[in-house]
């Protein structure tokens, strides 16, 4: 075996962050397979339910404009909520394994043998729930909506009035930017949750889910018994759902805003919410700590 040894090796351009993110997607195929599966199963259910679509459109015509929109948009809002929940679940379980798995399977020793800094490695892992998943979910939601609209139009093809109403009540092109805004708002709001999961992942030797949830239950139980108060629960609820009333104009009618064209977005209010910024600062601190932890973490 002889391989030319002295061939000059010219330094080739590299992009460690890009390749590290791709690496995460190779390893964790659930990042895209889980939401795709949810979307496909939902579409299958939607197809089965289309038999009654003409009758449902007749009911819709009886309603006022607002009621009509809510009625027609219902399955679209439903898949949006389902996919957003999927994104949260996938993001949490991904983060819990991200820094623990590489130590368990010893591959951390391979990653660390390459000129990729711990900062880039941790950022690439954080980018999955913070950027990649929201972007992916956005695309899947829009694609699902388009498929549903087209299928509905085919079923209703003989009734031009029904088709026109459907497209009028579901203005996809004007809704898409609003959906994108929603995805970004949720990602920013939930950032510290993912930061916490990554921290647990880099500290715990095993049972990361247990260690991530245990403090939550302990603090909840302690507060309930000791002070008979519910500050912590309200804090958790704020961190999970607080974006809803801050990224959008609060509605008289409670409901999910994304696919309701009547809901107005309020970016100024959102960006001036202190809770958003404290969350992001906490996330930044967590990421700095995680990078420091990963520096001298070896195989488990």
């Amino acid at each position: 075996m002889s391989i030319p040894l002295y061939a000059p090796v010219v330094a080739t351009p590299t992009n460690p962050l890009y390749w590290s993110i791709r690496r995460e997607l190779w390893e964790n195929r659930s990042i895209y397979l889980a939401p795709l599966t949810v979307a496909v199963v939902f579409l299958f259910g939607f197809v089965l339910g289309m038999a009654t679509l003409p009758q449902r459109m007749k009911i819709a015509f009886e309603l006022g404009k607002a009621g009509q929109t809510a009625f027609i948009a219902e399955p679209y809002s439903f898949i949006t909520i389902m996919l957003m929940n999927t994104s949260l679940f996938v993001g949490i379980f991904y983060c819990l394994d991200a820094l623990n798995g590489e130590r368990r399977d010893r591959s951390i020793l391979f990653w660390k043998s390459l000129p990729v800094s711990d900062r880039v490695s941790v950022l690439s892992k954080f980018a999955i729930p913070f950027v990649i998943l929201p972007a992916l979910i956005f695309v899947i939601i829009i694609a699902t909506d388009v498929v549903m609209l087209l299928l509905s139009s085919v079923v209703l093809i003989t009734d031009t009035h029904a088709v026109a109403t459907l497209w009028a009540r579901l203005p996809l092109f004007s809704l898409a930017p609003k959906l994108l805004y929603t995805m970004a708002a949720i990602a920013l709001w939930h950032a510290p949750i993912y930061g916490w999961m990554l921290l647990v992942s880099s500290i715990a030797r095993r049972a990361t889910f247990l260690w991530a949830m245990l403090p939550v239950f302990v603090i909840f139980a302690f507060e309930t018994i000791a002070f008979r108060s519910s500050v912590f629960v309200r804090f958790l609820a704020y961190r999970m759902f607080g974006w809803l009333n801050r990224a959008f104009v609060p509605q008289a009618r409670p409901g999910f805003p994304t696919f309701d064209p009547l809901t107005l977005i309020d970016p100024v209010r959102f960006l001036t919410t202190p809770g958003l910024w404290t969350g992001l600062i906490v996330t930044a601190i967590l990421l700095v700590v995680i990078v420091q932890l990963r520096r001298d973490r070896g195989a488990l």
Partner: protein
Amino acid sequence: MACIEAHGLRKSYGSTVAVDGIDLRVEEGRILGLIGPNGAGKSTALNAILGLTPYQGSLNVLGRDPWTQRDDLMRDVAFIADVAVLPRWMRVSNALDYVTGVHPRFDRAKAEAFLAKTDIKRSSKVRELSKGMVTQLHLALVMAIDAKLLVLDEPTIGLDILYRKQFYDTLLNDYFDHSRTIVVTTHQVEEIQDVLTDFMFINRGRIVLDCSMEQFESRYTEVMVNPDKAPSARELKPITERQVFNRSIMLFDGADRQELAALGEVRTPGIADLFVAVMGEGARK
């Protein structure tokens, strides 16, 4: 310039001292074997050299501080921790893509040329490869990196003898040149004796012996002593004596070869024999 230079390198875990203030200098173009019993501090020393663990004392690898500049250092250093660190989910093609994407001194064509001589398919996942093939893959990746320092920590553990031999042959014939430096730890001392230019014995976090192969060959002599010459041989104070088939084999440090030749059959000892002698001596102290 020295490739690795350490002064008072020390690392402790709680009250356990893993590396106890060692001084070390490895010149460019050497192949150094770090030899020591389990828990001697070899891996800890290597981890410090690779920037995987913080340490006390001063350490300079290729002009850099490994702990604060690990990612930069890894442009010029390649290492194989042991055979089982390649992620099992990864496809061979993924591994090539990834290393190409992050390593400025990786020559993909060279790695492909090496893999073409093996039975490894690009579409295979690491988990589908045999242990020997995983080592070949790792070696293909590492050999295509134009590194100045290659660190191998028990690289052939768990491999059968054919793969072990092939591993070192490939390394020597196709990779090593005198501008590269290789540091290797292994338990299979006999297999790398011919490969090394230098070796160090490490025990309890300290360097017990630091020796080049030339020094080793001129300084240490092993004699299979004829039974009638045993008492006079013992007067020359061998550092160790063992019995094989009722004949004494004695190891001498710095004795005159011609004098020894009169006592029996003279030969160059194995590093393993010297290791046993030196470590045994250390244990008695």
